[in-house]
């Protein structure tokens, strides 16, 4: 049993660390304290070439691998949650085109995603439909050579500066999940309105409002009614990466906690000399390692056994995101009052750690997925793989 990363994966991680240390770390605090569009960081990441990891080789990319994406997200998230977001959204938005786009669509859009000349968004969530994707209300009506889209999407990434979006809307509102279709919406061709929002932690987020927005019918991805499948089509590769991002957050939190505990003096000793502190740190480490194994196991399956990932990727996302909350919380406790201070990275992480338990499938949804898969199994015996 080989628990090692391949030499290429090790190399990728090193490359990422070097880049992040040099370019992102110096601006990380500002970047993560800002609700505005992170122009500087976007430029840096575009130039880094890491966007090539979300596009297949045929279209100028490096090829899409869940493990690679996990490595990159883990490293980004250790230093800056916004940098991680800037990186991965290109993948989330672009992957539907990678998997379900026609040759013409892929040739048209993917190279510009790969070189970062265009940013892309994934527009699924609505005020009334989060977990209940099938309940989305946006509509797309065929009218001559266009689809006319009406609806509201929320929790959209960098909406005022991202001019390509994969938008999910119902071409057949009566048909529930089977009525959803996916479209590439290009802001240079189609009009829509944008609003900004502020979340518990600093990121550039907002709403996109489609009012009789005309989208050329050639922008339909796949066929009408395939939207649900397209939306869920990201999950295999990308769900584990959410876990990877939270590994980065937890790793950073544990690091910070260790430093703090080693330095802080009290009652004639260092905080780390107290048994309870040691136990806490030990538990944090165990949980982080457990999550790491789950995440990379899921990513490995996504890359190698794509037909079998449901339980493992949900388990990874669920466990890692919940773990990160616990680890970050405990790390904050170890920091004491200073952990509540705005200047402290742990303070930001505490607020940021709450979100991954909700987005890309809430923890509850993950448990539902796992539960349902279990119900289908005759036995939980494992085969020849972990």
């Amino acid at each position, binding site marked *: 049993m080989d628990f090692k990363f391949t030499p290429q994966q090790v190399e990728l991680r090193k490359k990422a660390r070097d880049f992040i240390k040099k370019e992102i770390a110096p601006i990380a605090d500002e970047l993560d304290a800002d609700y505005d569009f992170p122009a500087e960081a976007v430029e840096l990441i575009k130039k880094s070439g890491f966007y090539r990891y979300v596009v297949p080789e045929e279209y100028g990319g490096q090829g899409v691998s869940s493990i690679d994406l996990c490595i990159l997200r883990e490293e980004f998230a250790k230093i800056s949650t916004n940098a991680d977001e800037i990186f991965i959204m290109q993948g989330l938005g672009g992957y539907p085109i990678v998997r379900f786009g026609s040759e013409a669509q892929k040739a048209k859009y993917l190279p510009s995603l790969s070189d970062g000349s265009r940013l892309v968004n994934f527009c699924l969530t609505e005020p009334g439909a989060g977990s209940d994707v099938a309940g989305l209300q946006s509509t797309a009506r065929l009218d001559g050579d266009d689809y006319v889209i009406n609806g509201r999407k929320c929790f959209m990434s960098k909406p005022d500066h991202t001019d390509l979006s994969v938008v999910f809307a119902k071409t057949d509102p009566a048909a529930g999940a089977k009525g959803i279709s996916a479209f590439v919406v290009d802001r240079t061709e189609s009009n829509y309105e944008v609003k900004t929002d502020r979340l518990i932690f600093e990121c550039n987020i907002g709403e996109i409002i489609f009012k009789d927005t005309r989208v050329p019918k050639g922008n339909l991805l796949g066929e009408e009614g395939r939207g649900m499948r397209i939306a869920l089509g990201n999950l295999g590769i990308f769900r584990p990466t959410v876990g990877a991002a939270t590994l980065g957050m937890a790793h950073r939190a544990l690091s910070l906690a260790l430093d703090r505990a080693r330095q802080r003096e009290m009652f004639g000793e260092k905080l780390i000399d*107290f*048994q*309870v502190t040691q*136990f806490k740190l030990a538990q944090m480490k165990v949980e982080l390692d457990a999550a790491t194994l789950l995440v990379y196991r899921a990513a490995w399956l996504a890359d190698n056994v794509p037909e079998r990932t449901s339980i493992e990727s949900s388990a990874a996302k669920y466990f890692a995101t919940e773990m990160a909350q616990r680890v970050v919380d405990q790390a904050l406790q170890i920091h004491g009052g200073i952990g509540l201070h705005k200047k402290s990275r742990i303070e930001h992480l505490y607020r940021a750690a709450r979100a991954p338990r909700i987005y890309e499938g809430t923890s509850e949804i993950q448990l539902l997925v796992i539960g349902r898969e279990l119900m289908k199994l005759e036995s939980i015996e494992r085969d020849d793989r972990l």
Partner: protein
Amino acid sequence: MDPFFTQEDKIFREEVRQFALREVAPLSEAAEEAETFPGELWKTLGQSGYLGIRFPKEYGGMGKGLVPYCIFIEEMNKVSAGLTAGIGLQAGMATLPVYLFGDEEQRQRWLVPALRGEKISAFGLTEPGAGSDAGNIRCSAKRQGDVYVIDGVKLFITNGGLADFVIVAAKTNPEKGVKGITLFVVEKGTPGFTPVRKLRKLATRASETAELFFEDCRVPIQNRLGEEGVGFVNLMKSLNEGRLSCAASALGISSAAFDEAMKYAKRRNAFGQVIGTFQAIQFSFADMSMDMEAGRLLTYNGAWKADQGMEYTLEASWAKLYTSEMVQRVTSKALQVFGGYGFLRDYPMERYYREARLWEIVEGTSEIQRLVISRRLGLR
């Protein structure tokens, strides 16, 4: 000043404690080992008056409220959860239905001798196929002239094999769920009523739990408690009391485990120091104490409200749910303090650990409690 306990309650607690140590504790170990309830204890209990805490003086009771009753249950469980399981039936669950739903003649016939410890009682609702889903019991009672013919099986019936009479819940109307249930008193020796099989259990081994068979068992209509079809509906009125009694039991067990673990932690040596000086052990006790106190407050708040005549369904479920989970946390932590000794039957710790597991299941599982609570919150 104490929010829940009067001076009288405090004196009562001390008296019960002494009684438990003097009369019950010495019988506990042998009873656990033999998995047999010591019959001579019934007379002692009858004479003490404690079987009648909840009942009016005219029936030989003490006429006291739920707070003193919970105090009794709590103190008794500190000494022996096993023996108290059987005693609690006699003092509450099996005798209350006679008092609440029986007529005067029935009370004189069964309740009065029960409180004297002369007639032992049991309560038969649960069946192999129906626990939480009480509405789904199969045991039937068909009216034939002036008898009812009872057929069915009851399982997990404490005192079932010892009882002089059993309160049996049976369906007079099988078409209906809970509204088809009627309560009957079936006396020992009635043809067709056979207690079989003393059950071997994870916990409360000192009390005897049985399986009961009813086959063409004929009871006169004078043995029917209350009207047809209201048996379970009636019972639901007394569920809250039972839940608080369970909570009090959990308090007693956790208390005993905590005290034993504390004594052990103060004398056990490891790595050159008494283990009670290790911070992790100290923090564990800190958490246990807080957990127990939270349980205590929930329990006695519920009992106090009951005694004030206030609505206390939520309080009873909260208390039962919380303390049953709490007692597992506390006994697990306490066992951990004991290390390997926690496994030895030479010490009571392993017994507390096993006893702790019962409370999330009996008298309404935790799942049922959560249902009750969420319904009370208006969620359906």
